[in-house]
C-alpha cells in the first residue's frame, strides 16, 4: 500500500458562473520517504494539488487515499487530526506567529501532539532548532530573523512532530538563491535522516536537481513523472 494514492482526482473552482478546472484528472502514488518536487508554470495546479495532499481541500471528483484511508470520508475534525499528526506544512510566506519566539513557534506545533514534560519538550525543540542551524537564535522573534532563518523555523515547526508527509509550497520563492539552496539542503538532510516523505512545489530549476522524483504539471494534468533514484 502506497502512502498517498490519487485516483482520477479532479478539482474545479467556481468563479461567478464559470467553472474553472484546476486539476483535470490526476493519478499519482507516492511512497514513504520519497523526495518529490512538483513543478510547472503558474496556474498549472501545483498549489491545488498540495492542498489536496495536505487534507486542506477535497477533490471535486476522484479519490485521495492517505495511508489507505479515503480523505473524502473524513469529517472536518478528522481532517484536522490527520493534519495534526501526519502532515507538516511549509509555506512560501513562512507564516510564523509574530508574537512567539523561534522556540515558541516550534514548541507550538509540538504541543499540539504531545503532552510530554516541559523538559522533554524543551530538549526536543532545542535539538530541532539546532538541526536546522538556528542554535542561539531561539529567543528571537520572527521580525528579528532573516527570511532564510524564518523559513528554517518553519521547517523546524513542520518537522518537530515527525510527520509522515511534509508539504512545502514554493518554500524558497521568497529567498535569494543561496539561502534557497541552504534551506533545500536542510530539507534533503531531514528527509534522509527522518525518512519523511517530502513533496515540494517550485519554479526554481536550481532546486529541482535535489529531487528524487520530479513531476511536471501542465494545465492541471501530470505531463511527466521522472524518478531519479536518490537525487543529488
Amino acid at each position, binding site marked *: 500500500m502506497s502512502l498517498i494514492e490519487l485516483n482520477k482526482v479532479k478539482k474545479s473552482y467556481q468563479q461567478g458562473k464559470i467553472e474553472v478546472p484546476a486539476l483535470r484528472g490526476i493519478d499519482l502514488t507516492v511512497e514513504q520517504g520519497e523526495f518529490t518536487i512538483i513543478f510547472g508554470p503558474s496556474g498549472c495546479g501545483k*498549489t491545488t494539488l498540495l*492542498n489536496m495532499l*495536505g487534507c*486542506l*481541500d477535497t477533490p471535486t471528483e476522484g479519490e485521495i487515499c492517505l495511508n489507505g484511508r479515503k480523505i473524502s470520508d473524513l469529517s*472536518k*475534525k478528522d481532517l*484536522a*487530526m*490527520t*493534519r*495534526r*499528526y501526519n*502532515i507538516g*506544512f511549509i*509555506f512560501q*510566506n513562512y*507564516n510564523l*506567529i*509574530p*508574537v*512567539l519566539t523561534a522556540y515558541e513557534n516550534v*514548541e*507550538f*506545533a509540538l*504541543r*499540539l*501532539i504531545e503532552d510530554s514534560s516541559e523538559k522533554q519538550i524543551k530538549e526536543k525543540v532545542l535539538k530541532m532548532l539546532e538541526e536546522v542551524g538556528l542554535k542561539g537564535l531561539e529567543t528571537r522573534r520572527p521580525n528579528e530573523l532573516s527570511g532564510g532563518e524564518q523559513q528554517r523555523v518553519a521547517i523546524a*515547526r513542520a518537522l518537530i512532530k515527525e510527520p509522515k508527509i511534509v508539504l512545502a509550497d514554493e518554500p524558497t520563492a521568497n529567498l535569494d538563491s543561496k539561502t534557497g539552496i541552504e534551506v533545500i539542503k536542510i530539507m534533503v538532510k531531514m528527509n534522509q535522516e527522518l525518512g519523511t516523505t517530502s513533496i515540494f512545489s517550485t519554479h526554481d530549476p536550481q532546486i529541482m536537481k535535489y529531487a528524487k522524483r520530479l513531476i511536471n504539471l501542465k494545465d492541471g494534468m501530470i505531463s511527466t513523472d521522472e524518478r531519479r533514484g536518490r537525487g543529488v
Partner: protein
Amino acid sequence: MFSIKLGFKNLTRRKRRNIITALVIAFAFFAYLFLYSVMNGMEEMSFENIKNLETGDIQITYPEYWEKREELSLENLIYLDQDVDESLENIDGLSGISPELRFSANLNNGIDELPVMGLGIDPEHYKEVFTTQKYLVAGSMFSLDEYKAVIGEKLAQLMDLKIDDYITLLVRTKDDTFNTIDVEIAGLLHTPHPMVNTGTVFVPLDIAQQALNVGNSVSLIAVKVKPGYEENITETLNQNFRRKDLNLRAYSWRESAETVIALATAKKGGISAILSIVLLIGIVGIVNNVILSALERTEEIGMMKALGMREMEIVLVFVVEATGIGVIGGLAGCLLGAAGVGWLVKYGFDLTYFYGDMSMSQFGIPILNKLYGVWNFSTFGFLFILGVTVALLSSIAPALWAARKDPVKAIYHR
C-alpha cells in the same frame, strides 16, 4: 494549553488598539460606577434629609388628615389627651416623639408678604426627633411660651430679615377668622433640606395653638425610632391605637416621601439602562477588536488550521485575548471608578455649579448645595465579573467566525 498562552501573548499585538478598547471599557465602567454612586448618594441624602428634617421615622395622625396633609388643614387634628399619651408609652425602640402643628401662614415683614408653612413645635421634644437645631447658623432656638420664631437663612435673605427683627404671621384660625402671630426672629437655619430653609417658619407650639384656637391639638406626632425598629413600632402603635379605640394611624416616612421614592424607583430603571449601555459599549468594542484581529490574522488562522488546530482551539485563542482586554479594561475602570467615587464620597460635588442658586428641591429632591456619593463595593465586584463575562461571551461569535474560515482561502487570502 498553548491556545491560552497564545491568547495572552496576542494581547501584546496591536497594543494601541487593545489599549483603546480597554480604555473605552474602562471609561464605561467608570461612568457607571460614578453615576451609581451619585444616584445612591442622592437617594441616601434625600432619605436622611426627609427623616431628619421633615418627617421623622414615623408620623402619627388621623387618616382623614393624612389624605389632605398638603392642605395644612386645621380639621382632624389630634387632641393630646391621656389615651394618646398612653398609646405612646413604653414602646421598645422608640427614642423620641414630637407633636407638631402645621398651618398655612403669610409671612409679613412690614413691607412684603410671602406664603409659608408655619410649624408649631415643642423644641425640647423636637430635638429628640429632628436634627434641625444643629443647623442653626445664627441666634438660638426659642422655648415654649416665648413669642419668638426660627426661620431659614435663605428665607430671611429673601424677606430682608435678621435676628431680633419682628415678623408677623397672618393665619386663619380653626374658626375661620383671621389672626396674627407677632414674633421676634430668634434664630436662622441653614439645613441641607431646601424646603426647610425657604418655606418654613418655626414657632413655639403653645403660641401657635393659642393663635389658631385649636386648644391642645396638633396636626401630627413625629416619632424617632432606633435603627431597625421602624416596622415593629409602626405595627405596635397601630395596635395600641386600635386597643384605645383611637382612629389614629402610624405612617412610615416612606409614605411622605413619595416623590423621592418614585425617583428612587426610576433610578433603578435608569441604572439598568446605564448598565445596558455600558455592556453594549463593551460588546461593540470586543466584537470589533476580535473581527479586526481575525481579518489581520487570516493567514495565521489558515496556518493554525494547516497545523491541525481544531476550531475550538482557535476560538480559545481569540476568546482569551478578548477576555484579557475585558479584564484589563474592567480593572482600569474599577480603579478609575474607585478614584471617582472616593472623591465624591470625600468632597462631594457642588450642585450650585449646575443649578446656580436653584436647588434640587425644584426637581423633588430635598438636597441643598453639595451632593455626596456612597461606596458600594459589591457593585464594583458585580460590574467587573459581569463585564469580563460579557467580554468573554461576546467574543465567542466573532471568534467562531474566524475559526470557521476555509483554510485554503485563509492561507492564500492575499
